């Protein structure tokens, strides 16, 4: 019996590699970072892991993390490639 209704199944990358959307890329300055986790807290796309690593395959470059970082530890850098 074929599928009766469009049921989509969960998968990473369901909306494509949204990292390619970026014009600017967030770069964490480990020196300045105090691991407060606010960048992770506020990332709408959960692109920052528990270990505070940014998944650049998916980070859309919105800049919220940089904006909200209390230590100004994140810089938004123009994508070059």
């Amino acid at each position: 019996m074929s599928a009766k209704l469009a049921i989509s199944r969960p998968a990473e990358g369901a909306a494509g590699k949204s990292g390619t959307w970026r014009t600017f890329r967030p770069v964490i300055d480990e020196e300045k970072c105090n691991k407060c986790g606010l960048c992770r807290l506020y990332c709408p796309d959960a692109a920052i892991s528990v270990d505070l690593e940014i998944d650049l395959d998916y980070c859309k470059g919105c800049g919220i993390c940089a904006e909200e970082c209390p230590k100004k530890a994140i810089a938004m850098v123009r994508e070059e490639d």
Partner: protein
Amino acid sequence: MFEIRLHSRGGQGGVTAAKLIAYAAFLDGKYATATPLYGAERRGAPVVSFIRIDDRPIRVYSQIRNPDLVIVLDESIMELVDVLKGLKPDGEVFVNSQKGTCVEGHRTYPVDLTSISLSLDLVLAGNPILNTPLIGAIAKLGVISQESAKQVIAETFRDERNVEAALRAYEELKI
């Protein structure tokens, strides 16, 4: 009939660019249509637009399968989408590229529209405006006339720098 397929990303202005190119062709006295192909995605997702230019009324609404020209407004799309699909054997490619990307088997015209815009500070809601330099470049390709290109930009954008952007792109594109 001259058929163009334009690849861009939601939010980059590709849909408007297609309309402007078709409008310029209309000013040239041609029949022209521009059709966007929307998904329901938000900004950032790949978007395709189609432009048809002809001397006779255009009766076709379906997608362009075998374009004469492919325009790529965002190089990174080329990783996701086969932008050359169906391109006519003698079809050409225009790419907005910083690094002068060229495509094998087809004449490619790379121009760094993004830098032109950023250098002129032509930025809207965080995104560089690519339409106006693109029109300049396309005029150079002869798809539309220079006069029409100018008129379109003048009618649509108040900011003088847009004309400047078009001119720079016109110049940067090497035939």
